[in-house]
Structure formats: structure tokens, C-alpha cells
């Protein structure tokens, strides 16, 4: 909302010594933010001059050499405007003048001719071209003959206005009007508010004799029509034009301008119909699906049964609350005008305007309107049409009103106000603040009954009144403190945070990726059964689906880094994966790891990440979380096809699959890239015992080595399982310490694995015989399965 200070000063006296920025800051402090606070014309050193001589420039086909009388002296000025001529009164920017956009006018020589200033067009002093007539768009400003030479052209043109562009909150529809702004300013500066002049004469017989209005939808709450006869269409007076321009609206002609002027002034959008094109009937109803209407801007719009329309009984002539139709537009030839002032359902108007067009009018309907203003706006329009368009207002008004236009009375305790604000505002200050707001009060001893003016549709409960007191009294006057409440321990689940730190300590970079991915990616890296969740209305197709696995997200990050020559990409992230399974919509917290390039750095060690590095990370995590000895890496029968079939395993905890780890299939990624994902919700649901000290044995341990030769397709896990089973409780630890395949083994299908076994007992020293017997048993058992001792 652009507020013209000249406009609002019609209704409230703002202290003279305040500049526009101070006023804007004062408004901000009571809750009305602003984007800018500027002079309408922000230019210096302008003066009215008269062109007393105008000759063509000898070296140019379009420049003119002018002598311009500015009262105190005659200036030589070179001017390129096509409309410059002898006798013309003009706006002169003198040497040193500052114009909008940082332009500074200096004495200069233009193609050999001295020029001591510039003759200005209106757009050069800051009036946007969209507001100007064709003549003003194409040439310098032509001042009327009565412009005083040597005078100030901004004052002469009444452009000496200042404008604050407010960014208002959604609840303050009342501030979308000059009068509302006047009330707001009056409460800050403790001033009175003047009321608009609504007086006008009436002629002829009642409008009901010649015009009928029918309301057929409950989405129209209030509808008023009056008729203005014999209007004279002409240019608006300067003050109307300038105020429209300051408010961001293009002046058209006096009648159209008045409808906009009243909307700005009172916040009530009006619509004027050309009576002769409309006929003598208005019907308000819901549109039919597929019905078409050409709006004022010449565009054909297709409507639906959700849109409210104005019709002449047969055809549609306007889209209620949004825009009028082309056929009944006020034109230079218009003689008689039907004035409409109405209130339509705000939600319906918003839906229609979102679909079709957002306008100054729809913006106001959406926020809600005060019925009292609707009546006021109708009379104000009549007043202005009579005064500035020579209209004769036909007697009587059609009125349809189902609004419950009652003033709200709210009783509020003084103590309540102070309790909510945590302040100590006296009864007198509270009552005085209501007075500044122009809210009527009926004070009692402990409370006050406040009558909320109908313009403040945002106020309905006592908390709203507390806000008003806080606003006007000033939040800065309330001292901050900490709540006085019983002490209590705060809690936070630190598991996720600990995992983050663990993974970071393991050398991985934590990422933060988008959960929205392309639907083509959502089933990759998983064989789980689920229904992907797609957005109804995505911004781009690249992000149209919620991810299920996080691996596609991290793989994208790998590709991004690879494209930038960033080597050694080792990443992790904890985030959500989303799904629908059956009728259940859900999300699981997951951890995803991606590793490629160098992970361990040591001079002379030049290995890239392999499967065992990422398996190590997985084990580190599982051990850290307390799942030691409860997990295994198993080869899945149903591997996602994006994985390398020979370098991938499922991660099983308590014989339940919680994740997957492996290499990305070389067909997808020819570099060695390894990924892992674990469903943390599933994993962490598995209970872990307390960390507890285990007595350290006082007895020595016995170490035995065992080297065996086996078929290559027998896994290390197979061998370990067999050894553990035979070794029994006395085996404390088993470690693979050597692996050999190569020319020293004659059978090419075999390899050798060497294990170190540690035996011990908590309560005694083991003797050689029992260990030897266990070893013999193990060797015998292995031999049965074709696993022979390597000699």
C-alpha cells in the first residue's frame, strides 16, 4: 500500500516537523513495515522557465538551441525534445540539479554549443512513464501559460508529495485505505481524524423506477447501486491525478479516476458501469462452468461455478471483486453511470483472483471489508462525481444487505492486559491508549468495556485488544525477563548427534541434501516394496517425488563434486526417506554413507577406497551403537540392480536386514564408488544393554595360529563359524591375519587363510593338553568339510 502524505493529510494532521522516514519508522514501530519512504519527485534545482528563443542546432538534425528565461537570467540550453518551441513554459533543471537515478546536471558543451541545464520531461523528474499521457511520454513537460517564471515547478504541479510504500500484515485490511491510515497515524500522534465530505444533491424519481438489481448468491453479502446521470467525461483535476500516481494507479479520466480515488480513500472498491450499454438490470450470481467473459483488459476468461459474476440478466458483464467486463466499461462517450458498491465473499474472491488476476480491488475484497465503509464509499463517489464530473445523482439507492454490521463490545480487565504483556501499565494509560485508537470505552473499576469500531474487522477477542495496547503503548517500554517457573531438567535425545560426530570422526563430510528427487530415481538402490510419494504440484519435474532411499541424493552430490574435479569424496547424511505402504504414509530416519577416492593417507600407501573400508565404517557405527557381535554382512538373493553383484552385502542385525552396503554397479558409475544405507529407525528400535565393566582375567591367555587351505568359494565367515562352533567358550577371539592366493598354491581354485586364535578362561590357567585337543577337534572338523590344514 502506497501512502501519499498529501492525501492522508486531508484527514489527519501529522506534526509538521516530521520527515517522511520518521513517519515510516513510527508506523513500523506499531506494526506497519515499509519498503520505501521517498519524495514523489526526488529532484533538486528545478525552476520554471520560458523558452524565449528556439533555433535548430547547426550540427544536428534534432537538437535545438534554446534561450530560456528563468526570471533572474537567461540560460542557453541545448534541447533534443521534439516539442520544444518558442513561448513554451518548461521545467528547467539548472546546473547542479540532482535527478532521480543519480543523474546530475552540469554545464556542458553539446556538439560545440554551450548548454547550461536541461529542459525536463516528467519521466525525467521521477514520474513513471506508465502514468503519463502519450504527449508526456514523448516530450518535455509543457507547463500551462499561468506557470510563474522562476517558480518551483514541483509545487506548481502539486507534485510536492511524499510516499511511503507499506508492506502490511494480512489482518490489517483496514489500512488499505487513506482513512484507515489516518486513524493509525492519529493514534500514534494523538490527533483527531476528519470525516470525508459525503454531501450531494439528488434529482428525479427513485432509481427503483428504472433500474432493478437481483442477488442470487449468498456469496454476495452487500450490494448497493446508485445512478449518476449526465456525467461529463474529462481529465481529472491535478490533485486527483497526482494522488492516483502517488498511489501507483494510472489516471484515465475523471469518472474512472473517481472510482479508484474512492477505493484508495476509503478502501472500498467500486465499479462504474456505462448505464446505456448495461441496460436497466443487474443480476449477481455464480458463474456457470465454461462460461466466458472478456474483461476490461481485453482478455477472454473462462469461468467456473466457483466465480461470482455480475450479469445484465442475460450476459455476464463483470467478474465480481476482480475486474469489470469490457462491454460496460466507462468510455469517453459515457453519459450515465451505474455505481456499484458491494461486499463479496473474501475466500471466493481470492480463489478467483488467484486463478485469473490479482487487482487492487481483489486485494481489498480478500482482506474483508467494513459494511459501513461500503455505504460511505457510495455517497463519497456521488459527492465527487457531482463535483468533478458534473453528474446528477438520481434519487434513492438499491440496497441488499445481509451483513451483521454490529459494533463489537469486549470487556477486558486491566490486570489481564498487564499479565499478558508482563507490564505495569496504569488504568489511565490504558484508557488513554484506547482513546488514541478512537475506541469508545466504558471504564469500570477493574475492567473496561471497549467498543471496537467496525473498521477494525481484525479485532474480535480480548487478546486482540492487548495487542492494540501493546502496539500503541510501545513494546520497547516493556522490560524483558526470563520466565519464573519451577526448575526442571531439559531433555534431548543425543543419539543422532553422537552418530554425526562419530561419522565425522571417521573422516566423512556431513551433507545436507534435498529430499525431493525425480520420480525416475525413487526406486533405485532398493528392492523394498512401497508406493512412492509424488507431489501434486511440483515446481520442476526434477524434484517431483519424495525420496525413499537417500543413496540417489548422495550419489548426485558425488557427481556434482566429480564434475568439479573434487577427489576423495567421503560423505554421510542422516535424513528421512518417505513412503506409502498399504494405507500408511510414513517416513524413516536413515543414515547414508558414500565413499570414493582416498580415505587413508600415508606416504607410499596409494589405495583407493574399497569394499572393506566402507564395511569398516558400517562396523564402526554398529559397534559404537552397541551392536557388536549381533550383526553380519550377508549376500542377498535379491540385490538392487544398481549395485555391483559381487561387492555388495546386506547388513543384518539380530538376523533382521537393516541396511545395505556395496559398490555402485560399474555400468552406472565406472569409478569405484561405495555406498551404504542403514534404516536408523529400524536399527535403533533394537534394544542394547547398558555399557558394563567386565572383570579382566587374571590368568594368561594361549594363542594358536591356524592356516588352512580351502576352495575359493568358501567364505571366511564359513570358516570362522565352524572354528567358533568347535572351539566353544574358551575361544576368546579369532582374527584373520593372512590371506593368500597365488602361485605358491598349486590348485588355482584354492586359497589360504590364516587365523590367530586366542583361548582363555576367567578363572584358571588353561593347560596345553586341553588346548591341543580343542585344536585337533577343530582341524578334524574342518577337514570333514574339505578345509585342510596348510602345511
Amino acid at each position, binding site marked *: 500500500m502506497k501512502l501519499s502524505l498529501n492525501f492522508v493529510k486531508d484527514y489527519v494532521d501529522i506534526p509538521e516537523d516530521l520527515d517522511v522516514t520518521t513517519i515510516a519508522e513510527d508506523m513500523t514501530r506499531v*506494526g506497519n513495515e515499509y519498503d520505501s519512504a521517498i519524495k514523489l519527485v526526488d529532484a533538486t534545482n528545478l525552476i520554471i522557465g520560458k523558452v524565449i528563443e528556439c533555433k535548430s542546432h547547426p550540427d544536428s538534425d534534432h537538437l535545438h538551441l534554446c534561450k530560456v528565461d528563468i526570471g533572474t537570467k537567461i540560460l542557453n540550453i541545448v534541447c533534443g525534445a521534439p516539442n520544444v518551441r518558442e513561448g513554451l513554459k518548461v521545467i528547467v533543471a539548472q546546473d547542479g540539479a540532482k535527478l532521480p537515478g543519480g543523474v546530475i546536471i552540469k554545464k556542458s558543451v553539446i556538439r560545440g554549443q554551450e548548454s547550461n541545464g536541461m529542459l525536463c520531461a516528467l519521466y525525467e523528474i521521477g514520474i513513471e512513464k506508465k502514468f503519463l499521457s502519450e504527449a508526456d511520454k514523448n516530450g518535455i513537460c509543457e507547463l500551462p501559460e499561468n506557470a510563474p517564471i522562476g517558480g518551483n515547478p514541483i509545487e506548481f504541479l502539486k507534485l510536492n508529495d511524499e510516499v511511503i510504500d507499506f508492506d502490511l500484515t494480512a489482518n490489517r485490511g483496514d489500512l488499505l485505505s487513506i482513512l484507515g491510515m489516518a486513524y493509525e497515524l492519529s493514534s500514534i500522534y494523538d490527533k483527531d481524524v476528519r470525516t470525508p465530505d459525503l454531501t450531494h444533491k439528488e434529482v428525479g424519481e427513485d432509481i427503483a423506477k428504472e433500474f432493478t438489481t437481483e442477488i442470487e448468491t449468498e456469496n454476495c453479502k452487500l450490494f448497493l447501486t446508485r445512478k449518476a446521470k449526465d456525467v461529463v467525461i474529462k481529465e481529472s483535476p491535478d490533485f486527483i491525478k497526482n494522488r492516483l500516481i502517488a498511489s501507483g494507479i494510472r489516471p484515465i479520466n475523471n469518472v474512472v479516476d473517481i472510482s479508484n480515488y474512492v477505493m484508495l480513500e476509503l478502501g472500498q472498491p467500486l465499479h462504474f458501469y456505462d448505464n446505456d450499454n448495461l441496460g436497466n438490470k443487474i443480476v449477481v450470481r455464480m458463474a456457470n462452468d465454461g462460461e466466458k467473459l472478456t474483461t476490461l483488459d481485453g482478455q477472454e476468461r473462462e469461468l467456473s461455478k466457483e466465480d461470482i459474476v455480475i450479469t445484465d440478466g442475460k450476459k455476464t458483464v463483470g467478474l465480481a471483486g476482480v475486474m469489470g467486463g469490457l462491454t460496460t466499461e466507462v468510455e469517453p462517450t459515457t453519459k450515465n453511470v451505474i455505481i456499484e458498491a458491494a461486499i463479496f465473499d473474501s475466500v471466493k474472491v481470492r480463489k478467483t483472483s488467484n486463478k485469473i488476476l490479482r487487482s487492487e480491488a481483489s486485494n481489498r475484497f480478500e482482506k474483508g471489508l467494513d459494511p459501513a465503509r461500503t455505504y460511505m464509499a457510495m455517497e463519497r463517489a456521488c459527492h465527487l462525481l457531482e463535483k468533478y464530473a458534473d453528474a446528477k445523482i438520481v434519487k434513492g439507492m438499491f440496497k441488499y444487505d445481509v451483513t451483521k454490521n454490529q459494533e463489537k463490545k469486549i470487556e477486558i480487565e486491566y490486570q489481564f492486559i498487564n499479565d499478558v504483556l*508482563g507490564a505495569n501499565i496504569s488504568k489511565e494509560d490504558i484508557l488513554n491508549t484506547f482513546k488514541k485508537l478512537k475506541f469508545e470505552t466504558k471504564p469500570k473499576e477493574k475492567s473496561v468495556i471497549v467498543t471496537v469500531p467496525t473498521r477494525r474487522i481484525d479485532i474480535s477477542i480480548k487478546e486482540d485488544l*492487548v495487542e492494540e495496547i501493546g*502496539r500503541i503503548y510501545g*513494546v520497547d517500554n*516493556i522490560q524483558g525477563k526470563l520466565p519464573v*517457573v519451577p526448575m526442571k531438567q531439559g531433555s534431548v535425545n543425543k543419539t543422532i548427534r553422537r552418530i554425526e560426530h562419530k561419522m565425522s570422526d571417521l573422516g566423512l563430510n*556431513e551433507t545436507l541434501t534435498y529430499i525431493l528427487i525425480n520420480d525416475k530415481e525413487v526406486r533405485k538402490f532398493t528392492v523394498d516394496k512401497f508406493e512412492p510419494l509424488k507431489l501434486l504440484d511440483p515446481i520442476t519435474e526434477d524434484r517431483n517425488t519424495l525420496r525413499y532411499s537417500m543413496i540417489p541424493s548422495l550419489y548426485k*552430490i558425488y557427481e556434482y563434486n566429480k564434475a568439479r574435479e573434487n577427489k576423495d569424496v567421503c560423505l554421510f547424511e542422516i535424513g528421512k526417506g518417505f513412503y506409502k505402504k498399504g494405507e500408511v504414509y510414513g517416513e524413516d530416519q536413515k543414515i547414508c554413507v558414500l565413499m570414493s577416492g582416498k580415505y587413508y593417507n600415508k606416504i607410499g600407501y596409494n589405495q583407493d577406497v574399497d569394499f572393506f573400508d566402507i564395511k569398516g565404517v558400517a562396523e564402526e557405527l554398529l559397534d559404537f551403537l552397541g551392536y557388536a557381535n549381533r550383526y553380519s554382512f550377508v549376500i542377498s538373493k535379491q540385490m538392487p540392480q544398481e549395485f555391483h553383484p559381487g561387492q555388495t552385502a546386506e547388513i543384518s542385525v539380530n538376523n533382521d536386514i537393516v541396511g545395505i552396503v556395496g559398490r555402485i554397479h560399474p555400468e552406472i558409475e565406472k569409478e569405484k564408488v561405495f555406498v551404504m544405507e542403514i534404516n536408523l529407525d529400524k536399527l535403533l528400535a533394537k534394544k542394547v544393554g547398558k555399557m558394563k565393566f567386565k572383570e579382566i582375567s587374571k590368568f594368561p591367555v594361549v594363542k594358536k595360529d591356524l592356516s588352512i587351505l580351502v576352495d575359493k568359494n568358501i567364505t571366511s565367515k564359513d570358516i570362522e563359524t565352524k572354528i567358533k562352533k568347535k572351539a566353544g567358550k574358551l575361544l576368546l577371539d579369532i582374527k584373520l591375519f593372512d590371506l593368500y592366493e597365488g602361485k605358491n598354491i598349486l590348485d588355482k581354485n584354492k586359497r589360504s587363510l590364516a587365523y590367530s586364535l586366542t583361548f582363555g578362561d576367567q578363572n584358571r590357567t588353561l593347560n596345553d593338553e586341553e588346548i591341543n585337543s580343542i585344536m585337533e577337534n577343530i582341524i578334524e572338523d574342518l577337514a570333514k568339510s574339505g578345509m585342510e590344514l596348510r602345511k
Partner: protein
Amino acid sequence: MKSKIEEIKKKSAQEIEKITDLKSLEELKVKILGKKGELTSVLRSMKELAEEERPVIGSLVNEARDTLEKLISKKEEEFKKYEMNKKLEKEKIDITLPSSKLKRGSIHPLNRIIEDMEDLFVSMGYDVVEGPELETDEFCFKRLNLPEGHPARDMQDSFYITDNYLLRTQTSAVQARTMIANKNQEPIRMITCGKTYRREDDATHSHQFNQIEGLVIDKKERNVSLADLKGTLEVFVRKIIGANLDLRFRPSYFPFTEPSYEVDVTCFKCGGKGCNLCKQTGWIEVLGSGIVHPNVLKINGYDPEKYGGFAFGTGIDRLAMFRYGITDMRYLYTNDVRFLNQFDRKDEEV
């Protein structure tokens, strides 16, 4: 005999002196001190001496033996030290060569700031709670006093999955969940941090971003007020954003609070003098806050006559950008390892 001992001593001392390696020294040691050594043979020949001479000569032999032993062991020490020095010299390395280590990991700047915020509020007795990112219309809007038809619910602003499910547009949804979960209407002090989603994507808005949300509800008689909100947010801003920052409470409008306030903080960049970041105002809008709307209490099972409190929330991305001087929001989500690697050390304590 005396002179013989002297001679052996002198001669042996000279021989020891001439020795150049450990092995020869060992041989010499046997030759002088061994069972068949010269000194031993002197001892053996002592029985030929007179009774009274024996102790004198004996002690002379022993003295010579001591002296020679000392000389030998001194020589031995010298050789050992020399050998050790030779070995050490051989083992000398270039200690300026790079160390051996795992790649250094890092924690994302957003999670760093979240951790600090959680710790701060836990220290003031708040519980850190979590809520789903895939929310229902009910918790995201309805229970926060945003009835159907409210402009903030427009399809164009939210990512809907179905008519009912959407990606949460605000962490405020967790407010309602916390109140509903609290079946006995106990007082609440909670914060929640997490991802939120809105249907916009441009230079200053990411469709995915992060918020922190706080809620305090207590019995009316404890009177949790706007002054308490102010004090709490002063602590928050000065601990998390900057110790010397001022706050400005500006009346505003949110459906879930009444009264509502936007909180401006002294511009991080210019310190309040006015710059392009703060559009010359000296203030940056940081938080939304207010006194919990009675409708929100009512909808979520708390009697507004008996309970009251405050709520606040803010976007975290911008706070992280400010804290670490990150110049472009997109860095937070592109995950360039040259960016991530910079967050590999301990933060300042909050």
C-alpha cells in the same frame, strides 16, 4: 712381582687404548682378565711368595684388575654409544614429511548451529522434541488456527502429496503435536528444529529450509508473558547470533499468536549503521513470535482460561550463513566438498 704387575697394568692399558672395535675388545678382555689371562697367572704364582707378602701383592693385583676392568668397560661404553649413534643416524627421518591419517570429516554448519541451539534451550529446562516432515493438514494448519480458506494454506505455497498430506511448511506443526501428546495438560517448555518446505525457489528462498520453533505453556498464575518472551529471545539472539546485538519487537500478525511480534536484530553486517543487507534500516528481521493464541490452546486441549504462554520461531539457514560468513545460501545444499571440508573443527563455545 710388584714391577711385573705394574708392567702388565701399563701394557694392558696401552693395548686397551689401541683397540678399535668391540670384538677385539672382548678378545683382549679375555686375554687380560680371563682364566688364562696374565693377571690370573700372577695370582696363581702367589703361592710361591712369603706369607706376609701375599696380601700386599693380592691387593695390588686386585687394584690392577679393577683399573683395567674400568678401562675396558669405559671403552665398551664408548663403542656401544658409537654403534648406537651410528644406528640412530641411519634411522634419521625427514620429520616434515606429511603425517599418516584418515581423511578429516566435518559436521554440516546447519547441524552445528542446531546443536548449539538445542544445548542452550536444554540448559534453560526446555525439552527438544521432534515431529514428522510429512505432515497432515490438521497439524500443519488446522490445529494452529489456520482454518480452511486461510490465505497461508494456499496450494501454491505448499507441497501437497494428497489433499490431506503435505510436506510441513513450518515446524509449528510440532507445537500442536506436543500439546496433543501432553494428555494431562502439563506445562510445556519445548523446542524443535528441522526441515521445512515451501513451494518457492529463487536466489533467496530454497524450497527446503530449516526452522527452530519454541513453545512455552504454563499455568495462568505463573503468568508467562510478553516480557518473558522478550527476555528469552534476548538470551537466544545474544548467545546464538551475537553478544552485542539489540532486539526490536515489532507488532505483527500470525494466526497462531495474539499479540504477535516480529523481532528485528541489529544488522549483522553493518552493526546498525545501515547497509544494503538491512536496506539502510540497521535492522534485520529474524524471528516471529507472540503470545499463544487462545484458539490454538483450545484446539489442542488446553483451557485458555487456565493456561497461557509464548511461542517463537525462525529460519536457521540465515543464522548459519551469518555465523560462518557464508555468502550464498546455495552453498548449504550443493555440498561441494571444498565447502564441507571447512567445517572440520570445534566451534566457539556458546
